């Protein structure tokens, strides 16, 4: 399995720290860094669970202002003087009184050299100070502009979810179509619904006012009482958000009565769907909750927003939903407006610390491209499928309520701080977070993603959440002088968050890397992580494609690759045949070849929604998973050999083989022609062909393992050679055999109808260009 780190020859590349850098040895000068082509960046997975992470039941000890780095194994400790020196800023700090008993024999967990990552539970030592963990809040926002059948799927998914939600969790329900219906679950007498119109933008204040949550109409109740230091939500919020245990019956009744949107749809028109207002209302309602409460808006969307703020297309069917081409030509009239609206919504949610999850299930687009900003800024989940009846939706939806091993570990209210040695500057972060706008000396001038800050907010994060932090090497005059140089660079990541149980945790990871004098290429090469580099590059390019008009990603990749190969390749000038790459780089050209062909770069094969979806996942997944998105893994199953990874090439197809392709978003089981025939004839049901049955079964089992470990659940495609679904495989394969070379193809193999160049051609060109002087 390609995603298995072992296949790439590195034992758990993420390690304890779950941090992977593009360059593990750092070029000393800016110039050198730029020659390295691949930016210096760290992919971190702050919540990655690892049994070896030490948990400390006290708050972290911090360096003095403005550094605030946390005490770590790289600190120099003077046990006698009870002093520690911060490796990042070199400040000397006295240990506080409760560390007085520290000695060489008795050192706290965070100083163990193996404990580069530790997790603090700041309140654990003092249970009295623990605020009762606020219950999580799930606010469902359900689209009713769908056909009866889809709605039934939604209802059954919801019923299942209601059964899974922890009893203490607060639940709310909003349904919407032409108008937004906010259900007052706490009203016993009859079904009570607040109705908001879909056409009008509505501010948070108005919503609270109109719901009677603003305190203006509360009469004697007056302002909210302060409880536990939190601004306790007024009792009124409880009209809408009820503990699951209390509203289960009501919710089920509501679901039973829930109907598709009753407003008529005129012929030739789309349903009128006011997703924007629905989300505003949801956000507004949560605004009445106390900040700090982990709350998710879980939106189930069945189509595009056609009215009001956030509208992406008019209701007139003759107007198609915008395509990449429209976006490129600036011919999507609603796009910018919608993005602006969602941007504001994102700000609101972030300030409240709440999350938006999107479950889009429609054949058409629903506007993920526009809503991306909200989901990404709040750290929400996003799932894209064709139908609410599709396994991709059903299983993914169920997963968010799972507990135990498979749980996503949905956490809230995260904040990430990064500290690093002075010679490094932080350019920014790509990933599901929002800048907290904490500027400081560590901020680089050039910005990538969420920059100009050293702290970020992660409203929602889970075990697999990854972020890419970009660094700039900018040594000061003094430190570039070898004499004064500290050979080490330190970076510390501090992530505080509220775990699914509501407890506050602070995870601190400190890493140390060596500076490399510019001349020593060897060390740099040794420190190169080509997978991480490929992923970082993919993220970086995606970002640039979104941010910069006219950005030609393919050419940019090509040029970068050529520069990289020129810099680190082993060759004689102008002799392509002599070209050779170090093993640390050997896969990189292939990654780039596949990246060029991937959905991240070749967006025109996809809708803007799909692209947005792919990129959001790319940005928030681990390096390993992201690599699979760029370059899928392919495993062959046959009678002749155990399951073997094979080249991602059309040549891998054989009539008697079963191929298992893992492209992350989809998992394809591809039966060769002969295998398919055997299966169709039912051999696997015959006792004497047990081996064949096992052969058929093996890839299925493997696929299931992949699916179970992944969120969103990938689409499983089972197909046969020459079948229509086979395109899911063929599209990913290196077109080494096309219709132009059809006559050379080995029997049983296949060809791909494309004019794309094959990897061989690509390599040849690369070699030639790399060695050019």
């Amino acid at each position, binding site marked *: 399995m390609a995603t298995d780190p072992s296949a790439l020859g590195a034992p758990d590349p993420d390690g304890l720290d779950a941090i992977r850098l593009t360059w593990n040895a750092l070029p000393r000068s800016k110039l050198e860094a730029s020659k390295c082509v691949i930016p210096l960046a760290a992919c971190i997975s702050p919540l990655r669970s690892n049994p070896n992470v030490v948990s400390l039941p006290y708050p972290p000890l911090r360096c003095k202002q403005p550094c605030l780095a946390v005490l770590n194994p790289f600190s120099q400790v003077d046990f006698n003087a009870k002093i520690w020196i911060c490796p990042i800023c070199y400040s000397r700090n006295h240990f506080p009184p409760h560390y007085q008993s520290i000695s060489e024999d008795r050192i706290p967990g965070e100083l163990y050299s193996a404990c580069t990552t530790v997790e603090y539970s700041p309140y654990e030592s003092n249970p009295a100070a623990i605020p009762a963990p606020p219950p999580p809040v799930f606010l469902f926002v359900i689209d009713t502009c769908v056909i009866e059948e889809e709605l039934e799927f939604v209802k059954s998914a919801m019923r299942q979810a209601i059964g899974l939600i922890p009893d203490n969790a607060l639940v709310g329900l909003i349904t919407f179509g032409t*108008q937004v*219906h906010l259900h*007052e679950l706490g*009203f016993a*007498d*009859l*079904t*009570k*619904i*607040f*109705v*908001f*119109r879909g056409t*009008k933008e*509505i501010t948070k204040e*108005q919503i609270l006012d*109109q*719901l*009677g949550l603003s305190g203006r*109409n*509360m*009469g*004697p*109740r007056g302002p909210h009482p302060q409880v536990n230091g939190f601004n306790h939500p007024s009792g009124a919020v409880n009209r809408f958000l009820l503990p699951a245990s209390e509203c289960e019956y009501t919710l089920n009744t509501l679901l039973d*009565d829930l109907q598709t949107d*009753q*407003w*008529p749809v005129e012929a030739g028109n789309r349903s009128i769907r006011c997703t924007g207002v629905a989300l505003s209302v949801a956000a507004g309602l949560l605004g009445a909750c106390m900040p700090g409460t982990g709350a998710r808006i879980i939106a189930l969307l069945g189509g595009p927003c056609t009215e009001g703020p956030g509208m992406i297309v008019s209701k007139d069917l003759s107007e198609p939903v915008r395509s990449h081409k429209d976006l490129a030509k600036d011919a999507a009239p609603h796009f910018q407006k919608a993005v602006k609206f969602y941007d504001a919504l994102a700000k609101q949610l972030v300030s409240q610390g709440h999350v938006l999850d999107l479950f889009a299930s429609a054949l058409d687009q629903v506007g993920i491209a526009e809503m991306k900003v909200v989901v990404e800024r709040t750290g929400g989940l996003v799932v894209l499928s064709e139908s609410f009846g599709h396994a991709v939706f059903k299983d993914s939806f169920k997963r968010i309520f799972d507990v135990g091993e498979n749980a996503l570990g949905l956490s809230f209210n995260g904040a990430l701080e990064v500290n690093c040695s002075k010679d490094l500057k932080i350019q920014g972060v790509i990933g599901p977070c929002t800048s907290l706008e904490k500027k400081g000396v560590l901020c680089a001038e050039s910005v990538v993603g969420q920059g100009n800050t050293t702290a970020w907010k992660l409203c929602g994060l889970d075990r697999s959440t990854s972020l890419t932090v970009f660094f700039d090497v900018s040594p000061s005059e003094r430190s570039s002088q070898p004499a004064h140089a500290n050979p080490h660079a330190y970076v510390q990541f501090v992530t505080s968050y509220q775990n699914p149980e509501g407890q506050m945790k602070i995870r601190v990871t400190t890493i140390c890397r060596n500076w490399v004098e510019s001349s020593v290429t060897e060390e740099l090469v040794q420190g190169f992580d080509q997978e991480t580099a490929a992923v970082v590059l993919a993220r970086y390019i995606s970002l640039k494609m979104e941010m910069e008009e006219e950005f030609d990603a393919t050419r940019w990749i090509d040029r970068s690759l050529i520069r990289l190969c020129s810099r680190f390749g082993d060759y004689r000038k102008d002799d392509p045949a002599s070209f050779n790459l170090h093993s640390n780089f050997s896969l990189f050209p292939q990654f780039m070849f596949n990246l060029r062909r991937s959905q991240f770069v070749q967006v025109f094969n996809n809708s803007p929604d799909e692209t947005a979806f792919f990129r959001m996942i790319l940005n928030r997944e681990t390096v390993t998973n992201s690599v699979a998105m760029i370059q899928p893994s392919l495993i062959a199953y046959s009678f002749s050999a155990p399951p073997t990874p094979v080249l991602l090439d059309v040549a891998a197809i054989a009539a008697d083989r079963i191929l298992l392709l893992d492209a992350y978003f989809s998992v394809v089981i591809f039966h060769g022609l002969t295998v398919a025939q055997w299966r169709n004839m039912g051999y696997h049901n015959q006792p004497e062909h047990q081996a064949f049955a096992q052969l058929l079964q093996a890839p299925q089992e493997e696929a299931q393992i992949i699916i179970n470990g992944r969120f969103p659940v990938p689409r499983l495609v089972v197909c046969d050679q020459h079948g229509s679904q086979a395109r899911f495989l063929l599209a990913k394969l290196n077109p080494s055999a096309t219709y132009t070379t059809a006559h050379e193809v080995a029997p049983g193999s296949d060809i791909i109808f494309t004019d794309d160049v094959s990897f061989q051609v690509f390599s040849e060109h690369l070699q030639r260009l790399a060695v050019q002087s």
Partner: protein
Amino acid sequence: MASLQPRPPPNYIPNPNQTPNLAADSFQNLQISGPGSAPPPPTATSGPISRAVQPPPGPVPRGPFASNGPPMAPPSGPPGVTPSMIRAPSAQSVPAPFPGSPPSNAPYTVPPPGRGQPVGAPYMTNPNLNPVSQPLQVGPPASAAQPNPMMGLSASQPNSMNQNPLGSMGPRPFPGQPSSQPYPGPPALASQPVRGPPQSFPGQTFVGQPPMGQPPMGQPPMGQPQMGQPQMGLHSMGPPSMAPPSMGAPPMGSVAPPFGGSAWQGQQRQGGMLAPVRMAPAGMGQQPMVSTPGAVMGYSPHAGAQVSTPSKIDPNQIPRPVPSSNSSLVYFETRQGSVVSPPPPATSDFIVRDAGNCSPRLMRCTMNQIPCNGEILTQSCMPLALMVQPFALPHPSEEPIQLVDFGEMGPVRCIRCKAYINPFMRFIDQGRRFVCNLCGFGNDTPRDYICNLGPDMRRRDADERPELCRGTVEFVATKEFMVREPMPAVYFFLVDVSMNAVGTGATAAACSAISQAISDIPEGPRTMVGIATFDSTIHFYSLKRSQQQPVMLIVPDAEDVYTPLQTDLIVPLGECREALEQLLESIPSMYQTNKIADSAFGAAIKAGFLALKPTGGKLLVFQSVLPSVGIGSLSSREAEGRINISNADKEPHKLLQPADKTLKTMAVEFAEYQVCVDVFLITQTYVDIASISVVPSTTGGQIYYYYPFSAVSDPAKLYNDLRWNLSRPQGFEAVMRVRCSQGIQVQEYSGNFCKRVPTDIDLPAIDSDKTIMVTFKHDDKFQEGAECGFQCAILYTTVHGQRRIRVMNLSLPCTTVLGNLFRSADLDSQFSCFLKQAANGIPTTPLTQVREQIVNHCINILGSYRKFCATISSSGQLILPEALKLLPLYTLALIKSVGLRNDGRLDDRSYWASHVASISASLAVPLVYPRLISIHDLPSKEEGDSVLPAPVALSSEYLSDEGVFLLENGEDALIYVGGMVNPEILQKLFGSPSLEGLPSQLVLQQFGNDLSTKLNEVVNEIRRQRCSYLRLRLCKKGEPSGMLFHSYMVEDKAPGSLSYVEFLVHVHRQIQIQTKSN
């Protein structure tokens, strides 16, 4: 109330419009326990009788004073009587002298116009004039002559027995009448006559008891003949110089006493008869007194007794309305060939036969002859207007309006002016052509409609075709009258559930009323209902059958509302009756703990409107507090107003204007989509009716006002009002236009409607209670002898979804003689007209000015009459046109009415103004000049009698401390309990020997005794007559409630206002000044 039948059998009315009686009946059922169907008009019966009884008949003729005081003026049939009687009578079955009903009045009044003349003649020099006029003499003088016309003056003649005149008549009116006349009293009379004469002092007449008085007749030589003289006296009186016409206060003071004065009373007791005639009035002009004294004294010996007061006007002889009810049913034929008779008074009970002109209930003109040109009209100072009440309830015995179906062709119309075919279109040319009676255009008769003419030049089929022989018909509307399918009957209820509404019980009352009323709505397939509640947000309820329970949908945006559903908000009644009833039951408890004090009235009606927009329909809003949020929210201007007033703000009337245009704009939009709004204000606070009323008045709805709301007594009224609202004859999406003959044109429409084009008015809903006033102006001249035609066409949809055109025609002769105008003047219509004009003026003009205008208007009319039609009489005599003799009284009542009083609450005045805007002529008078009856001595009912006793004049003189009185104005009823009432009576009436502990907002109960039963009968009869469930309030002497009661005693003198007699003096003086100045 006990008497209520919670669920009267649903009277399903297939077409209420056609058979109004049924509807009327159903209304009766409403409140009434058992009033038979008795159409009988309230009769004065009891009144007279009672009197008769109490006072020793013989001796005390003058009952007036007696507690029971007969209200009416004494019938002192002026000498004139005689003559007149003779001829006039002919016409009506009723005693000639008094045309219609008012026997009592008769005394002074000269005979009714028509016949009147004879009478008049005698006195007045001017034949023409006289007839009409009644001379009122201020001065005591000799005038005696005129029988009474003058208030008491005649005194001069000792024998004032003017009655005598009666004498002659005597026979007829009184005695005889019993049968014909309503007067129950008669019987008593009969006897009296006998003794009467004797005793009565010279006195004469007695007012109150007209009947009795007469006997004397014989003698009195009332000098009638001498009319002339009186005048003389007059001058003296005529304090012209006296200058201050105004009743100078000071004098008044002095005056007063005499009047109501103890002195009087004392005497009465004694002699019983004070001479009626001249009594009082001393008061009148303060000064006058001076001069008069002599005279007076001289004349009436008795008078002498009276202390100082010299001249007096006998209050008992001043013109007062005679209860029409006294008369038995009158049959009125709208035309007899070319003769158009003036209709009976609007307040009387009559049966109409439509003979070409429509029933006066439907259209009533301020004058029954039309001035040929504008100059005459201007000279008369009278308004030319029609009171149009297109769905007025007919008398049950009347022939229903006939429906004519012209099929595809549609009703025949004049090509030029689009007038509908009517009995006054003239067919010519063998019927092949017809000439329009309005525009004079000659049309070709449609081929299918041609019919030969008979020798009389009428179509031979004229009598078979209702449209050619009836003043009112309905045509089936063809497609061209429809913009869309006729709308269904849709009712949408909006209930205020804000904190105060729930707290006061208003919400519960409204829900229960709706629940009950709904069960009475006939369940046609096209009857739809919907409901919403509101506080600061609006709560709709989806009542679809498929749902187990209703779904509440809240529209929280009160600034910019919308409907939460496209369908299901309004559902066929049959499908949701049960769900709705359950919902209504639970609403009060659902909002029991509502803490939201704000109420978004504007937003709520907008939301209701949006729900109704596709169909149109009626929006019934139950509002309890000042709308404080959302669109059209209002501020508590009342409080601000108070502050400003103290700051001497000169324009308090601004507070009677709508606060802004928001609601008006909304209302116009509602009207466009055929949404009619009725607002039920169930409140205990100021709600700014001035602003709110704009909505109903623009959409053809009305305001109902329950203030201060009592959860104990008001729910019954609320229910009955609502039920009547839903079940009365009505139509939807109506358009109305009045056409008239060339020579005049419509000047203005006024009433509750929306007007978008100059010629038509749009009425999202129209019902039997609504009246529209149409004023006219001349743009050309008529030929003497020509007829002026009016045609009102109203296109509407019945509650059953049929599109109809109701066409009402009225054709009146034109005249150039001013006297004819006065003779044919219609008091009820004219007064309605003043009333409405006054109401219109309230928001824009300072009160004092409004009152001044009204008084001036009255003076101008009377002055015009005096100047042009009664020139011969001396200036010292106040001469009133017979037809308008009550105008001064009503004018006085009007300026003292709730809407024009200084001390009224803003809301009361606004409500009054809004109520008046659509009030019918038959209810206009009682609203201002309420009916007062005594109820401690209700007579037992006799065959054919009305259950109502004769009314008492609105003067505290007629109230006795031992009595219990009921005063009603068609809206409210006050029960006044004197200070020394026999506890037994209280026990009988109220079930308690004392008033301690009785709530002032009374719930009438039936106690098992005769008196209580009778009282209930009386109240129910009044309710039936007024089509209104009266709010009963208990007024105790000496308490604020008693003060309230006294404020209705319009004939009394009150701080800042004149007594009736003083007012007459004032009017007289003004006329004199006017005359002089010319």
